[in-house]
């Protein structure tokens, strides 16, 4: 940074720039601090006039309300803290199921978009363009208030081979009942994990040295499923299916998806699948055509080209945006509150807030939970992304 016009003597401009920079930063920090202080003072005054004070003691108070659907037990005598937990578990349940289903549907539609069969690819295109240009909330209300309401009442339930039933009070599925002597379960799980890691590492080494591929995934799968079959056959464990049965006015037994949960899962799945389909299509198209041609020249068949050449490369393009889509799905699950599915927002930011009036604490906790969950999803997909990255020598 020498300047002819500066002439003799020291060039003060870097110092001036440094001071200016420090000045800007100090001003920005001071402005933000002043704003926060202003908010804090207002909050203190508002709380004082309402006779409230901040604190999280309310979480251990008795809730005194019921929750329509929960995985973990909840009664009116339980605390607000437990209600929070119920909401969180309900949110995670809906998100987990929807992520799996949306990914599967999204892959199917994304691949159908690339089909050489013209009607199939047009159908997939129609799906994508119809679904993604409508608000998610509209999808949700449609499934809840129109599609599921159109199902017959309980007595005239649609029966799928006597195994599953559809009616306007929900979807009933067979529930797997696994009975096993679980005393040794943690140890056997550890043993299996150790064997799996060993086989995986051994295979990597062998492959690096000899170049021979060992079907490690297949072997591990066979070992695990073989053991499971062995356990079932020997009577140490038993797997039975509990079927839903119509008794009187309603079904008993089986696994019940409430209309709220079903509508939420349908809406999240259908909506996000349209975006995932486009991501899948883009990532497959991003794989260079030459890769396919080279694999063909090497004599690989269609299936192996897809499995060994195209999909691994497509995944590298796909994972970061797919991770974004999962984050979107996670956050969008909060729309559940619009149809009364007892998710985190509905139970905690809705009912608990209304009963306790603790707006500041409850909104902060809710936002913190979503921030943490978002960070976890981002971290998990980043780790996977790193594992799947191209290793260059």
């Amino acid at each position, binding site marked *: 940074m020498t300047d002819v016009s500066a002439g003799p003597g020291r060039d003060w401009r870097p110092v001036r720039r440094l001071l200016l*920079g420090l000045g800007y930063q100090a001003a920005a920090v001071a402005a933000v601090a002043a704003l926060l202080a202003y908010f804090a003072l*207002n909050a203190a005054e508002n709380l004082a006039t309402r006779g409230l004070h901040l604190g999280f003691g309310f979480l251990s108070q008795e809730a005194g309300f019921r929750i329509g659907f929960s995985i973990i037990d909840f009664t009116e005598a339980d605390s607000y803290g437990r209600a929070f937990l119920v909401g969180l578990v309900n949110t995670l349940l809906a998100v987990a199921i929807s992520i799996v289903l949306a990914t599967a549907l999204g892959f199917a539609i994304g691949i159908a978009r690339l089909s050489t069969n013209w*009607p199939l690819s047009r159908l997939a295109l129609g799906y994508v363009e119809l679904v993604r240009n409508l608000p998610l909330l509209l999808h949700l209300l449609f499934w809840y208030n129109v599609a599921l309401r159109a199902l017959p009442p309980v007595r005239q339930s649609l029966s799928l081979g006597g195994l599953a039933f559809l009616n306007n009070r929900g979807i009933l599925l067979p529930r797997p009942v696994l009975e096993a002597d679980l005393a040794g379960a943690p140890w056997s799980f550890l043993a299996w994990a150790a064997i799996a890691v060993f086989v995986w590492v051994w295979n990597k080494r062998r492959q690096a040295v000899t170049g021979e591929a060992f079907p490690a995934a297949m072997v591990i799968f066979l070992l695990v499923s073989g053991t499971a079959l062995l356990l079932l056959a020997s009577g140490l464990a038993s797997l039975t299916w509990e079927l839903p049965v119509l008794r009187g006015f309603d079904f008993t037994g089986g696994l019940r998806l409430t209309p709220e949960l079903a509508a939420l899962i349908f809406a999240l799945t259908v909506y996000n699948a349209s975006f995932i389909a486009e991501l899948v299509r883009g990532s*497959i198209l991003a794989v260079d055509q030459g890769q396919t041609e080279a694999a063909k020249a090497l004599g690989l068949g269609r299936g192996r080209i897809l499995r060994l050449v195209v999909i691994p490369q497509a995944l590298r393009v796909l994972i970061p945006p797919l991770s974004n889509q999962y984050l979107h799905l996670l956050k969008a699950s909060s729309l559940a509150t619009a149809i009364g599915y007892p998710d985190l927002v509905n139970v905690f930011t809705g009912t608990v807030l209304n009963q306790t009036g603790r707006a500041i604490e409850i*909104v902060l906790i809710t936002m913190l939970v*979503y921030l943490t969950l978002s960070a976890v999803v981002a971290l998990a997909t980043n780790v996977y992304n790193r594992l799947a990255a191209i290793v260059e020598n």
Partner: protein
Amino acid sequence: MSQLSYPVSSDTTPRPTTASLSIGAWTSRNLFAGPVHIALTIAIAILAFYAAKFLADWAFLDATWVGGRRSDCTGGGACWAFVVNRFGQFVYGFYPPPQRWRVDLVMAALAGGIAALLLPWTPRKRLIAVTMLTASPLVDFWLLRGGLLGLAPVETDRWGGLMLTLVVGVTGVVGSFPLGIVLALGRRSELPAIRLMSAAFIELWRGVPLVTVLFMATVMLPFFLPHGVRFNELALALIGITVFAGAFLAEVIRGGLQAVPRGQYEAASALGLGYWQTTAMIVLPQALEKVIPGIVNNAIALFKDTTLVMIVGLFDILNIAAAGAADPLWLGSNAEGYVFVGLVFWLICFGLSRYSQAVERRLNADQRR
């Protein structure tokens, strides 16, 4: 499935021209290439036929267009009488009918402005854009709210329907612009404190759902504002949406800033321009132009998200439809209401996304040599 639909074999590489194929060749290649394709084509054709027949019957042939209540709809198909009857509410909410010309005026100006911006050959685009981002929101607000210069006041709790949806959407887009630009510049700043604060602010809003942002704005924010000041629900929701949208827009603009070549900065520096001059005259115009498709996509997502204001009790077009179907006279008219609302959103969102694709193609055309 994957085997038949995945374009692995070389005959499925993108065909350069379809014009060169005869109808017969096109048909055999795209519809009837092998037994699986034939079965698939026939199955989809049958499915499409029944779907089309059901839709035509429901929406037109068996539909009822005129009536004063649900029981007047005896056709067995859609009860469009519901939408026809409530059309005023769907568009204007509870805005007093004699004053609705004000809403019409605002909507017409908005439509004209957006059309002028979207058409590639409009002159003085920058002037129009600046007007739409600065002066016209103020004029629009005055027209809608009234209370000044002889216009009768219309309280915001009477706003609703498509008009409210547009108010929320446009405020979100316009308001998030300056915020997004400031945050994006802050995140790219060389000053660590500013960079850190911007990044923290952006990530905070991007990591939480809009629903909780709306709850924060309407339930928690009043605690942080001066005691005794009553803020109305709409203003609070608009603040929440603007901040949320600003954080997302900031990341889009950051992408554009990163895409401006270093040489541009260096050239500006060589001309003796300072930071603000370089940013305002050289860097930002280029960055923003590069990310027009991203901005439009963002606007589409935001527009769809405006429906969430229903969760904090505002009557946007979706909530008006839901509330209308809960009216005893029209009980069970959910499907018709949703279809109408869906049509409005679909036309706007699909149109915008097509526009953004066209811009992308035009920008790419510049790149091709």
